[in-house]
């Protein structure tokens, strides 16, 4: 079944305590090549059948209203992944 992937990231100007914590942990593991970390989240919405434009629109609405908090987060991707 095809899936719609939604990526959500904290807005660039918003503090990301989890990303900051990871950024602090990396050098402790000897991984020193990174200047910063931002942590977002990924949703996979599974569709039974074809992804019609209506369904994709529904996914966009879900992304904007339920999956992300528009005050502090941006939806960075809503994309169909075809059946594997």
């Amino acid at each position: 079944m095809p899936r719609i992937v939604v990526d959500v990231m904290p807005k660039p100007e918003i503090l990301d305590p989890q990303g900051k914590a990871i950024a602090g942990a990396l050098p402790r593991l000897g991984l020193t090549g990174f200047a910063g970390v931002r942590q977002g989240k990924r949703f996979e919405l599974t569709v039974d059948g074809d992804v019609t434009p209506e369904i994709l629109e529904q996914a966009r609405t879900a992304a904007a209203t339920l999956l992300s908090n528009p005050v502090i987060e941006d939806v960075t991707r809503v994309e169909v992944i075809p059946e594997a």
Partner: protein
Amino acid sequence: MTVSPSAAAEQKKFRIDTVEHAAATPDTELPWAELGLKEDEFHRVVEILGRRPTAAELAMYSVMWSEHCSYKSSKVHLKQFGDKVTDKMKEHLLVGIGENAGVVDIGEGWAVTFKVESHNHPSFVEPYQGAATGVGGIVRDIISMGARPVAVMDPLRFGAIDHPDTARLVHGIVSGIGGYGNSLGLPNIGGELVFDSVYQGNPLVNALAVGVMRHEDIRLANASGAGNKVVLFGARTGGDGIGGASVLASESFDADKPSKRPAVQVGDPFAEKVLIECCLELFKSSVVEGIQDLGAAGISCATSELASNGDGGMHVELTNVLLRDPTLTPGEILMSESQERMMAVVTPENVEAFEAIMDKWNVEYSWLGEVTGTGRLIIDWDGETIVDVDPRTVAHEGPVYQRPMSRPAAQDSIQANSFNAERPFGSAAVKDAILELMASPNMCDKSWVTNQYDRYVQGNTALAMPDDAGVVRVDETTGLGVAVSTDANGRYSYLNPYEGAKLALAESYRNVSTAGAKPLAVTDCLNFGSPEDPEVRWQFAESVRGLADGCRELGVPVTGGNVSLYNQTGGVAIHPTPVVGVLGVFDDVARRTPSGWRQDGQAIYLMGTTQDELDGSEYANLRGHLGGQPPKVDLQAEKLLGELLVNASRDGMIDAAHDLSEGGLAAALSEMALRFGVGARIGLGEVCERDGVDLFTLLFSESQARAVVAVARSEEVRFKDMCSARGFAHARIGVVDTEIGALDFQSNFTLPLDELKAAHEGTLPRYFG
């Protein structure tokens, strides 16, 4: 991505507006109106400086002269809190109004600091982070006094419980408070939860924190000693809440105008926890001279306040500020409200020791500049001066308004509209009314909220919700401890703001003494509508006058607090809501009095008398009525009742006590029985006869200066003698009965505890799951 320093400087130099440039370009248009300054205020800035302000100066003045930071509308009234304080009241006061928080001497070399603040507007926009950063902000106020935070409390007010937006706010705000406070490891020992449609678009999220310290650890926010270094430490500065203080908290907002939403502050409780420990080590090692937390108005506030409270001069290089977002302009850096930051003043000899402590706790810091004796606050950007002001004009000499007030035209008709709906008569009707009351949104069991908070972490909590006051032990060897309660009744204040403020004080005072502690000091969070409305100004002035008079009569000083104005949507203001927090002291918290009875056969006494006072009551609220005059307040009676309760607790005469407030005797008896699930046989006939009221009125009236206590059989004579000697009305109204599992109102009706419990505990889970 890395930018070479020279390229960054190039980039930044491009847009800076220096003092020199400002003097040369007097006619440049500035966005003062967008930043919230009024035209005459902008002209005053020009007059003070003798030229147009630079962009950075404009940012500083606009944010520091906003209502939120300058108290420009409320200042003329608030000075009563100082004017009406007697020397006797100052006896226990180590630090009074004007510092980050007041400090009270509780004996044995210990001092306590406590303060309540609002975070109403941010919590409406982003409930979780708004409420979380509210906790973080008040905790930093406590740290900056030199104290270790030991407890928090949160008085909350929401719109109607069944309104669709209420669940969003309740879930977000309660989890935000829990998420931040629990992560810090601070017990949340109480607060309030009120639902009323007047708070629909303006939930009130107030946060109180308590901290303890030894007398010698008190630290103040001032920058003295020319040559001392100024350091910023903690989190980096980002674009959080820019303009939040001036734009957001000083304008009522409409949901249709998202453009006014500024960047929200996001809190990081784990960074704050490190900051607490790091600051306490700084204090212990005596390496800081003065310290200030960064809250509203960020660096603008910290630099101008530290400088004007000290010797008056400071010279700072703003490019030294560590940034999370390198694109910020100087004005934005000055206004940013990024959380978990502190500013301190350190002597040159202590710089090394300071840096060692920072490194130990892995806290980032940057040296910004130094204290000077020039009386000027000078801020440079890459060597060029962008701010050159007298810090007092920014921090303390902002505009002060004494604008005309008017008593609302409708006030007389509101006060004349007494509650005269039909009253329940007969056993069955009164029993149903009790069940309805105890299931109502304001009187129902609050554990759905308080169970999300850690109430006993640190192991010093002696009492917490649902008891009358939160109690924490301060000294583990002697048992010395404090009790804190917060109270307000917006409906009482709407009917009569002067009396309403006194009633809030009376209830908070009564709660603390009911727990067995001697009340010592007051903090307040004054939540009101727009100060541009003359009727709101009248409500505010009356409330402050009432609270100041009340404090004087009870002999407890206001030590600090906060004013939150512009709590209105669509031109409709909230009820005036002066939240009053009272702090009391115990010699030994083991003597605390819980709010429920447990011992079979103990006598139940009602202290105080009851009049027919249902106006503004919870019962009238259930019937959708709001009018008349609130219950009469008699502070001498409150004081006497308080003394009796504290003595009775200290001398071991009473094993349970509960004050009578919202919901009257019906609520008090129900809560006392449900506290430990123990019933009682109650007979109210004699009291009805004595006070000349019927059963319903005795149970539902909200007359003040009353409490119910459970007295051990062996102590009854002593207890009655004590009340009689002081001339305080008291009547035996029943006996604790561990067998019957009910409140048996003899010769009237029996209320099984199972039924009462189901009604009481079902409400919040039904709405919020």
